[in-house]
């Protein structure tokens, strides 16, 4: 782990590629140059003061060292600044592009729905199958755009969450129903267990549903051949705790620290067989944390994974937004 980290620190080429700058502009390289300059300067000043025993020489050499350090420091700051600026522009671009995509996606989805619901008589089974597939792709595209927009908002620090009253138990029941087809197709048994009583929370309904949907569909997708996904809803003091447990492929130990990073997808035999952007967990973690809870996981490769998240139980049931 430590060795890997140190090697990464010294991999200037990789860093330069990641930041989109040249090798000599990478912060690590500049820091090392600065370190070398400092050591050389201390040594130089020591030698100079020993040989000449004159304060002018010491002052001149110290001033030139300060000037040099100032120049290098300035380089580092401007590099970091330009990277931050580029990052901001990228986020803004994603945000604008996603918004623009929403209109054509709405058009496509509504046209498909109109065709399916009002004009489908006379169509052959094959034609209907194709229409359903296109409609399904439209749904997927809609979800992807929402994910990209949420990611951009998280990066900008501008993700605003609605405050809806949610009965988590009902929401999980509904989601399990909608995931049944995927589960059956993958030979996965979905089991739900609840503590007694209500599970009322105040949070963003659409987004908490996205969190649950991502975790449940991930568990199903990464089961492999067949298995079981358990969804356990419990009360822990002032919190509701949801656990999604699967006996799937698990996450290799070496990759566990990177889970939840943007665009990161674990390397496993199923990776290339399933869709995914690597944004689901990143978004889920941010939504849960911004809603006052936390998200974590335990996983053993080839044994399975357990994903947990908590959310505060609402004391007062109050409807703030009705959309």
């Amino acid at each position: 782990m430590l060795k890997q980290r140190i090697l990464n620190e010294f991999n200037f080429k990789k860093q330069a590629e990641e930041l989109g700058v040249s090798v000599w502009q990478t912060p690590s390289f500049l820091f090392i140059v600065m370190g070398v300059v400092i050591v050389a300067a201390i040594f130089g000043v020591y030698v100079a003061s020993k040989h000449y025993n004159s304060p002018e020489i010491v002052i001149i050499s110290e001033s030139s060292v300060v000037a040099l350090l100032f120049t290098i420091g300035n380089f580092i700051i401007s590099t970091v600044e330009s990277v931050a600026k580029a990052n901001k522009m990228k986020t803004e671009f994603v945000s604008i592009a996603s918004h623009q995509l929403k209109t054509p996606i709405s058009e496509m989805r509504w046209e498909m729905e109109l065709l399916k619901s009002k004009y489908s008589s006379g169509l052959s089974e094959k034609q209907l199958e194709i229409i359903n597939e296109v409609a399904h792709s439209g749904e997927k595209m809609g979800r992807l755009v929402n994910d990209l927009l949420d990611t951009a908002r998280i990066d900008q620090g501008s993700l605003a969450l609605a405050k809806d009253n949610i009965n988590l138990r009902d929401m999980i029941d509904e989601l399990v129903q909608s995931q049944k087809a995927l589960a059956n197709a993958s030979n996965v048994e979905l089991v739900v267990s609840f503590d007694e009583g209500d599970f009322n929370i105040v949070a963003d309904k659409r987004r908490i549903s996205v969190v649950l949907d991502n975790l449940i569909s991930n568990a199903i997708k990464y089961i492999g051949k067949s298995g079981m996904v358990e969804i356990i809803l419990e009360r822990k003091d002032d919190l509701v705790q949801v656990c999604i447990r699967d006996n799937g492929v698990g996450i290799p130990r070496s990759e566990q620290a990177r889970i939840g990073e943007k665009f990161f997808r674990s390397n496993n035999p199923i990776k290339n067989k399933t869709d995914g952007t690597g944004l689901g967990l990143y978004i889920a973690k941010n939504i849960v944390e911004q809603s006052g809870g936390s998200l974590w996981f335990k996983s053993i490769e080839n044994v399975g994974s357990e994903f947990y998240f908590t959310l505060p139980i609402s004391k007062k049931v109050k409807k703030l937004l009705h959309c």
Partner: protein
Amino acid sequence: MLKGAGLVRAVSNSIAKKSYMAKKILIVEDDAVLQKVLTEYLTSEGFEISSALDGETGLQMSKTINPDLILLDIILPKKDGYEVLKEVKSDSKTKDIPIILLTNLDSISDVEKALELGATTYLVKADYKLEEVASKIKEILEK
């Protein structure tokens, strides 16, 4: 099988037509495709549809045709949805017409602004099916 399903649909459409025959909906939407799809779908659900492609025309029509409900986009030419909403709600003749904002702007500040200005509800186009839009309209009209 298909024929049977078609028949059921036809029957359910005619029932829908009966109960919503008299209800007039004004759609203010500048996207021609969305305007067309909404009009076709809601017409087949039994509503009488009038439409405007910009805010100013929409506002005028809200006074002349006296709709039972308005579906209103936010980003519109000439007058935006917020302005239309404000003016409809400040006119004693039109202030009781329920307004559904139907837009792709989905930030919480937009939703809050719309509800503060008196919109009955706020739907994000990309997140709702036509069926859900229609059932929301029916729910509001039945109140």
